[in-house]
């Protein structure tokens, strides 16, 4: 049992590209009472706690540990989480 394993749990979500610019940070922190949560709930909480992100969130997906996660999957505060908006490689 580690020190940080007490509520609220800090979910750190990496931000990139235009969303990071809008949010003014490359890592948003979300405080949640449970150690894991549905992807759709994470996104909802992320928007509530970081209103600047909300406008672009409709085109975003959550990646958990470097792979896209579905809305109905659960993610943990221990996961590496990222909010992936519109990409522009190539």
């Amino acid at each position, binding site marked *: 049992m580690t020190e940080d394993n007490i509520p609220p749990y800090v979910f750190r979500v990496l931000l990139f590209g235009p969303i990071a610019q809008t949010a003014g940070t490359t890592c948003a922190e979300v405080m949640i009472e449970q150690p894991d949560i549905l992807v759709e709930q994470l996104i909802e909480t992320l928007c509530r706690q970081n209103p600047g992100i909300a406008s672009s969130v409709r085109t975003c997906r959550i990646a958990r540990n470097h792979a896209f996660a579905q809305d109905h999957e659960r993610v943990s505060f221990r996961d590496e989480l*990222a909010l992936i908006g519109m990409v522009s490689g190539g």
Partner: protein
Amino acid sequence: MKITVRIINGPLTDSGQVLRMPDAGAVVCFHGIVRELEQGRRILALDYEVYSPMAEQELQRLAGEVVQTHGLAAISVDHSRGRVPVGECSFRLTVASMHRKASLTAMDEFIDRMKMDVPIWKHPIFAEDR
């Protein structure tokens, strides 16, 4: 090697993988070059932001799916990270297949899907910002 994926710092300056497979009659190579206009404004360079290792993993996954779907002999993907000046190559995709149509279709599909799914972002460096 059937699938290779590389993220490279700065412009892609070498000429890329030579894909020679015993029964590949068609080898097609796409080079994405940084253009001097972005959203109608003159730029000096693009800065590519890459979320590693997810970008590499997504490119690998996508490459595997396209090889499978189109029965390719081989595929090689290189993408730049960081600054790439105008006129330089930032992306290179090489595809080998028995016949031409499979390579061309696979190439088009790969690039379409990359532009949807691979966590890489370009940031234009505008000329007038300097």
